[in-house]
C-alpha cells in the first residue's frame, strides 16, 4: 500500500532550520513531545465521539490545531480547524464523524513520528548536549 505521507517534509525542514550547534535537535524533541502528548488527546477525543463536550473539544482542538501544524501534520491541523468551527456553530450532529477522522489521522501520524525519530537518530541528529534544557527533559 502506498499511503499518502501524513507529515509535511517542508515543516520538518523548517524545524531543522532552527537547530543550533551544540543544542538538542529540535526536530527530535518536538516530534517526541508531540508523540508523547497524542495518546492523551486520543483518550479525550474517543470519549467525545459519543458524548461531545463542546468546551473540552474547543480547548483540545485549539491546542492540537497549532501543534500539529508545527510538526507538519497538516491534515490533522485542518480537521481540528473544522471541529473548532463546528463547536462555534454548535453543529454537534456532524461532530462524531469528524472526531473519528481525527482519531484515525492521529493513528496514522503516530507511526510516521516514530519513523521520523528513528531517522533523526540514525541520521546523526541525536542530542549533542542537554545544556540545561528543562524543556528537553519534559519532552523526553
Amino acid at each position, binding site marked *: 500500500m502506498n499511503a499518502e505521507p501524513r507529515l509535511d517534509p517542508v515543516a520538518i525542514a*523548517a524545524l531543522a532550520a*532552527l537547530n543550533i550547534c*551544540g543544542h538538542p535537535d*529540535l526536530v527530535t524533541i518536538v516530534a517526541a513531545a508531540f508523540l508523547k502528548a497524542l495518546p492523551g488527546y486520543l483518550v479525550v477525543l474517543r470519549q467525545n465521539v459519543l458524548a461531545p463536550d463542546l468546551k473540552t473539544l474547543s480547548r483540545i482542538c*485549539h491546542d492540537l490545531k497549532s501543534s500539529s*501544524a*508545527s510538526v507538519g501534520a497538516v491534515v490533522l491541523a485542518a480537521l481540528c480547524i473544522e471541529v473548532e468551527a463546528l463547536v462555534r456553530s454548535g453543529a454537534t450532529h456532524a461532530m462524531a464523524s469528524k472526531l473519528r477522522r481525527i482519531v484515525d489521522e492521529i493513528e496514522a501520524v503516530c507511526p510516521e513520528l516514530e519513523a521520523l525519530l528513528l531517522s533523526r537518530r540514525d541520521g546523526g541528529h541525536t542530542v549533542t548536549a542537554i545544556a540545561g534544557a528543562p524543556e528537553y527533559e519534559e519532552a523526553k
Partner: protein
Amino acid sequence: MNAMVDVPARPSRVLIVDDEVIHRLILSRCVELLGWQADAAACLEEAAGKLSAYTYDALIIDLRLGDQDGIHLLKMLQGSRGDPSIIFVSGMDNRTRSAALRVARDRGLRVAGTLSKPINPDSLQAMLLSDPARMKADVPPPGYGRPTAEELREALYGNEIYTEYQAKTDLATGMIVGAEALARWRSPAHGLVSPAHFVMLAEQNDLIDKLTFRVIQDAVITCRRWRDLLPNFSVAVNISPYMLADPTLLTGLDSLLSRHDLPPEALVAEITESAMISNLALATEVLTRLSIKGVRVSMDDFGTGYSSLLTLLRMPFTELKIDRSFVSVCQTDPEAWKIVRATVSLSSELGMRVVAEGVETVDLNNRLRDIGCDVGQGWFIGRPMPAAAMQRCLGLEAARTEAPGLAAPDDAMPIMARQPVKLFG
C-alpha cells in the same frame, strides 16, 4: 552609533508563557537563536513564580492557556520587575489578538506586537529585535547567537549569503508568474542567521547596499535564465528604506539590468509603507524614477503601516501586497476578510495588481481567486526555496504551458504538492 557594541550587562531574557509544550519548545529555540535566554512557563502560577524571581526583557504570552487566559497575566506584570515588552501569540483570530494588545497598552505595558500560530520564526525574531530598549542590553554569547558586522562583511564577500525564491502564482490559472527573492545567510559559526537580524545589522553598518545589490544581482541573473522557460516571469526584490537615499540605487539597477539583458518590467521593487513614511518626498522621487525606468513598484505589507491611502495616491505603485496578517486569518476572521475583499476591489479600481501574502491553504487560495485577487504567495503555493529547486518547478510549469492537456486551467495545486519528491527528495 552601533547599539550592539555599546553593551553593558547581560543577554536579554525572555519568558514564554504557553500551555502547549510544542510551542514552548519552538518559541524557546527562536529566542535562543538570537543568543538570548529563554525561560518557559506552562501556566499562570508558574509564570508568576518566574516573574518574581527574574527580570525579563520580553514576555511571549499565549492568549489561551487551557482554562486560563493570558490577559490575567497582565495584572501580575504591573507590580513586576523591569519593563518587559509584550508579544501575544495565539491561534485565535486577529481581532482578538489586537484587542488583547489594546488591553495591555491600556494598562501602561510596553507592547511589541501579536503573532498567529503556528509561529513564523522570522516574524517573532523581527518583533523581538525591533524593541530598541533591548538592543543596548544584548551581549552576544560565544559560540552562537548574533553574528557581528565584521562577520557579515566577510560573508558578503564569500558565498555564505545566498538567495532563495518564493513563488507567486496567478490565482486565476494557478500558473507561476514570478517569485520574491529573499536573502539568506548560513554562517559556519552561527548556522542559519535570522534575516531580521542580518538585515538590521547591514542597515546599521553601511552594508545594506552590498546586501541589496547582492540579492538584486542574483535575482536579475536567475530571472533572465528563467524567462527562457516562462517568458513573462518576474522577480521581486525588497528595497530597504536606507537604500532610498543611496545615489547608486538607480544607476546600479540600470547597469545590472542592461548587463544581464533583463527588461526592467521583469523586476519588481518591493517597499514597505513604514519605510516610506520617514521620508515621503525622497521615497516619491526614487520610486517615480524607478517607475519611469520601467521597473514595477510594489507596496509591501499593505495595511500594517500608516497613511496607507495617502501613500497609495502619491506613489507610482503598480502592485499592492496585502499583508499576511490580514490574509492568513481571513478564513476565521470575517472582519479581516472584509478588509481583504475591499483592498482587492480598491486595487482593481486604481488599476494596480494585487498580491495576497500568507496564502496557506487551498480554501484560502480559491477564495482569493474568486474575489478577483490577481496573485498569491504563501506556504500553500510554495515555501522559499533555493534557485535550483525553483528552476525545477519552472521547468515543470513550462511543460504544463506547452502541453496544457496535462493540467486543467483552474488547477491551483501548490507547486510543493505537484512534485514533492523532486523538490525535497
